[in-house]
């Protein structure tokens, strides 16, 4: 396994999000945004198990999923800035990432509703017998929508090649799990009760995510859909780059720093003896991010007429 490669992807997501957060604070960026900082090991750990033909869908917090899958950084930043060259031509904004050239087939912010759509992308694979799996990333909050459980049953019944990744960052906005769920709420029992495979991973640990995603995806390819629940920490506030320390319960700033997924992989790489290599990679990626941001800032806005285009194909 290429740990440096994984670190590079995680660092790309972190650096891009941090620079974009800083940009949001400096300038009026008119796109509703949710940053992924803290959850990088999940997107990268899962996407590292996928093949080229596999598909990924995401939610309102999908910059990381898009980048982990290899989505175009410049197109992403352009999209946030509402530019013509954006991944959705400026029409979608931050909550609507797409890059079909790398199998990232769309992200949408209506909680839960992307789950059956992802099942549909898996259905198409099965129907056409072309192989390939679909992965959908949703949050712990979204997983409380009824349609998610309906989709689990449907996927199990039709044996769809679908992996649902629940990124459990302990909150829906500022509402904790215990404020939303019964004391005995057991995702594993629910999922296994429906007949799907389930694993729970430490979402702050790249190795754990990668290993468990790998096991589940083997089963998914063989016809048993699955749910991977990853426990993680979102480092920034729900929908803004500012911090929200007063609402944090177990995931205080100290704990988040200590368990930080990037730090863990970085320490491991350093222990293997390549500090200089890591630092070189980091400064190269940072430059790449800054370059994408300047590119997007200078890029043209869509022409007025494009307000009316693309309603139908």
């Amino acid at each position, binding site marked *: 396994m290429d740990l440096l490669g994984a670190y590079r992807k995680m660092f790309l997501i972190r650096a891009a999000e941090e620079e974009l957060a800083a940009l949001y604070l400096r300038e009026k960026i008119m796109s509703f945004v949710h940053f992924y900082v803290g959850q990088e090991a999940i997107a990268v750990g899962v996407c590292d198990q996928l093949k080229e033909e596999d598909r990924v869908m995401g939610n309102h917090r999908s910059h990381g999923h898009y980048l982990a899958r290899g989505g175009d950084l410049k197109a992403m930043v352009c999209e946030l800035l509402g530019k013509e060259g954006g991944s959705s031509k400026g029409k979608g904004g931050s909550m609507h990432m797409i890059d079909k050239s790398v199998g990232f087939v769309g992200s949408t*912010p209506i909680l839960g509703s992307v789950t059956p759509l992802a099942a549909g992308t898996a259905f198409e694979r099965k129907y056409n017998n072309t192989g390939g799996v679909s992965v959908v990333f949703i949050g712990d909050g979204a997983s409380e929508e009824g349609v998610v459980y309906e989709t689990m049953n449907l996927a199990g019944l039709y044996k769809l090649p679908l992996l649902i990744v629940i990124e459990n960052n302990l909150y829906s906005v*500022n509402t904790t799990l215990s404020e939303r769920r019964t004391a005995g709420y057991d995702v594993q029992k629910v999922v296994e009760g429906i007949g799907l495979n389930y694993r729970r991973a430490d979402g702050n640990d790249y190795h754990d995510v990668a290993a468990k995603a790998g096991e589940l995806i083997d089963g998914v390819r063989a016809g048993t859909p699955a749910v991977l629940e990853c426990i993680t920490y979102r480092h920034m506030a729900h929908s803004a780059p500012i911090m929200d320390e007063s609402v944090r319960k177990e995931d205080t700033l100290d704990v988040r720093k200590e368990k930080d997924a990037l730090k863990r992989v970085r320490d491991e790489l350093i222990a293997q003896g390549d500090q200089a290599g890591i630092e070189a990679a980091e400064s190269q990626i940072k430059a790449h991010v800054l370059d994408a941001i300047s590119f997007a800032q200078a890029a043209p806005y869509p022409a007025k007429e494009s307000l009316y285009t693309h309603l139908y194909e």
Partner: protein
Amino acid sequence: MSERIIKYTEALKEAADQMLAQDPKMFIVGLGVSYKNGADGTTAGLAQKYPGRVLDTPVSENAVTGMAVGAAINGLHPLVHHGRIEFALLAADPMFTQAAKWNYMFGGGNPVPIVLRINVGRQWGNGPQHTQSLYAMFGSVAGLKVVVPSTPKMAKGLLVAALKDKNPVVLLEPRWLFQLKENVPEEMYDVPLDKARVVKEGSDITVVSYGDGFVAVLEALELLPKDVSVELIDMVSLSPIDHDAIARSVAKTGRLLTVDTTTPAFNVGSEVIAEVARRAVVLKGAPQSLSCPLVPCPTSTALTAEYYPTKVDIVGTICKMLGKPAIERELSFEELHLPPGRTL
């Protein structure tokens, strides 16, 4: 009555607060309503003040709304909050098919005293899935009373009236207006759920609007040539529509313009114009409606700048209808993209 200047969101909170104090059957449910600044401030502090009666929820709109309908059928008075109209759509069945039909389909005597506060999300960068202006859709469902508060004073009075009503009442609240300020009476008061307001009398043209469209018209009045006399009507209610008030005004002025921020198909303005035509009100020229184009609201400011009707568009249309030259005016970024924070 003692008055003071407060924001639209504060007016909504005050209505809920005063009704919670007087009606022990009332409770509030919705995502984040118990937060310190819950539901954009419209429920701020209420969870602490009324323990056990202001409930945060799992992310489960359909179940939460259905539960509230069931509670209402049995005599409680739920106020359900949905932070965007798109989230409320996940509860389309309990709203449209259960609550709206219950009393009728069981032959009366089965009222559903529920209030749904639903946020219509026009705001910078919210994009196609957070800004749909589905006003007409709610207006078309028999069995719902549908109102749109256009000012802080109306917001408070309409919410109080809704909470006192025995039937399902939907408040569609344009997020765009949340920062508006106005002198609002401190005491509890209600305003009728089914009456339009003539906000300004005039003789040349009747302009009919509601919500953020109404506030755009208010802004337009400041730019209009002084010799143009507009009669401005705030519809207030989309179900039922106060057609009598509108027809009375149009019969006087002989001209009709409707302004709103929905798409132009199956639209509220079309409904108003159709009824004026059915009543054979004599007009001096063809009625017009100003709305958004028939496309989703995009995210890029370069495109939203073109999407919503502005005060300049409204002035231009009025001048054209009266055969006067249009005015030239470039709008600033703030005027185009940031919600109005003015005091009415």
